[in-house]
């Protein structure tokens, strides 16, 4: 059951803040290129091709609440107000109690279930959205939007980004609604045609196919390609992280992708299965053992607990590798969750 904004326990930022620069800008300077690009693009307005705009906002909002991300949940709550949601409507979404619109309720349930993945969502949960009147492409776009939130939530939570008070305060006060008139367009989603150049080819293509053909799917494709081509961690270590998260979530398609990838890296199926059964193999490096131990914590967590674990990881492997590892865990959780709606 999701916590409310004031109930979330949040630690001090993982990285020592610099006084002359915002945490977001500071972070951009420390991340590797692929992660910098992915994180930077999160603040762009949604470009939506198929789903109703308000349902994209609602699904992102409840996913951030479900993941107990103080940073994203606070921002998403403010943006909901800016784009025209009443406080009462927002509270209804937070409590999941008295929603009037049947489709909104279904989308809220789907987004929460996919973000939580305990119990696992399945293909039938996405099909229920189609049965309620959404097009298949719109249902895929909502799924892509939810896992995009899962990525953003994990990055912000692992880093314990301080709440963005400037954005959170925008809709408040005497001029809040006037600001809303001007900022609604900036923060609200934008209706765009599906990306014409989008080709879903490369690692984990079978998983990304579940995101459909839209800007969020293109974002996921670019994220996965960037993750896989980065050389800060060996490909084998990245695939081990993917396999462990997939096994923990019971995400079969994702585990198959990871096992196939590991086979290409010289890790035989038998060795992979033995490693996944015990999280232990003689051929594993110390770094891999440390990363896999931490990775397990990233599937389900209380923010303060994972923030403490991430702090220990930072002390153990250094800033560059720790930041890369948390980017890896965020991508792998995103892919493994998306694959669940295919089973």
């Amino acid at each position: 059951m999701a916590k409310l904004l004031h109930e979330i326990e949040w630690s001090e930022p993982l990285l020592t803040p610099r006084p002359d620069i915002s945490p977001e800008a500071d972070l951009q300077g420390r991340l590797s290129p692929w992660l910098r690009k992915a994180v930077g693009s999160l603040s762009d307005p949604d470009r939506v091709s198929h789903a109703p705009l308000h349902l994209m906002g609602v699904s992102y909002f409840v996913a951030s609440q479900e993941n107990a991300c103080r940073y994203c949940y606070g921002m998403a709550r403010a943006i909901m107000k800016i784009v025209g949601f009443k406080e009462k409507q927002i509270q209804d979404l937070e409590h999941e109690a008295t929603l009037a619109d049947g489709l909104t309720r279904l989308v809220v349930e789907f987004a929460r279930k996919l973000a939580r993945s305990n119990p696992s969502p399945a293909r039938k949960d996405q099909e229920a959205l189609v049965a309620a009147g959404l097009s298949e492409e719109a249902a895929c776009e909502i799924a892509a939007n939810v896992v995009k939130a899962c990525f953003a939530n994990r990055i912000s939570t692992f880093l314990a980004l301080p709440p963005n008070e400037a954005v959170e305060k925008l809709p408040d006060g005497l001029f809040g609604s006037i600001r809303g008139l001007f900022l609604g367009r900036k923060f609200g989603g934008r209706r765009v045609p599906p990306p014409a150049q989008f080709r879903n080819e490369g690692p984990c293509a079978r998983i990304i196919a579940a995101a459909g053909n839209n800007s969020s799917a293109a974002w996921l494709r670019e994220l996965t390609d960037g993750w896989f081509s980065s050389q800060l961690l060996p490909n084998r270590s990245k695939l081990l992280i993917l396999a462990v998260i997939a096994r923990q979530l019971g995400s079969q398609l994702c585990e198959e992708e990871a096992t196939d990838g590991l086979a290409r890296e010289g890790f035989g199926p038998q060795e992979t299965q033995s490693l996944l059964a015990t999280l232990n193999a003689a051929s594993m490096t110390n770094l891999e053992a440390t990363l896999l131990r931490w990775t397990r914590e990233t599937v389900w967590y209380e923010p303060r607990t994972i923030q403490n674990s991430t702090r220990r990881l930072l002390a153990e492997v250094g800033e560059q590798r720790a930041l890369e590892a948390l980017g890896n865990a965020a991508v792998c959780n995103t892919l493994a969750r998306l694959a669940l709606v295919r089973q």
Partner: protein
Amino acid sequence: MSLFPTLLVLLAAALLACGALGAAVARLQRQRRLLGQRLEQSARELDRLQRSFARFAPAELVERIATEGQLASGERREVTVLFADLRDFTQLSERLDPAEVLGMLNGYFQAMTASIQSHHGHVTRLMGDGIMSVFGALERNPWHVQDAVEAALDMRESLARYNESLQRRGLPPLAFGVGIHCGAVIAGLVGSETMQEFTVLGDVVNVASRVEALTRRLGGDILVTEDVRAVLGDRFLMAAMPPADLKGKSRPILTWAVQSLALPAMAAER
């Protein structure tokens, strides 16, 4: 001329009827608003209960209870059960001041709970000086067996540190026995209408408890069953114990004393 008083009466009657109707509508609206508020308050209360309940029962179970209202729902799950019990604590508690006894016990529970939780386990019950914990019951955990054994090793280290602090306060050290077994259990809510708790039931629980009792007879502070050892492979250093009779079992069972983690030689970093 004679029509005027009739119209006046009719108008007055119409006004009265309108007034009565207006009052009735206002009353109904007030009632509707009140009912709405009560419904919302109940929904929020239910939501709050669900959220706090989810901290000690599996999310799936909470969800099922919330949507289907079936308190009796349970399910079969593969889990690992760990029992820990203090040795000779009853005799010790008779010699010490009650406040000291409770202080020692609470410090012990605190340290053991931290070890169990840090290895993805959940303490489901405290019984006197005993602890029952389950691994793999609240969320999907493919590694519940090794988590339980790692938790037991962590508990051993934690107890050693706790004993040092007891010694500094002039108090006697504590010693424990731990029994671990794995298998299928029924997980669900048990209790009466006024008191419910989430627990696991089945032979696995009985065997884990009896294996813990075997530690007194066979020696060794952490004993696991053959089923547990079979899952672990060579991850831990263990010594085979002689077959022992267990209440409720027709044949003697094999147990293993856990010594430590068998750290493999890690491959060089690439």
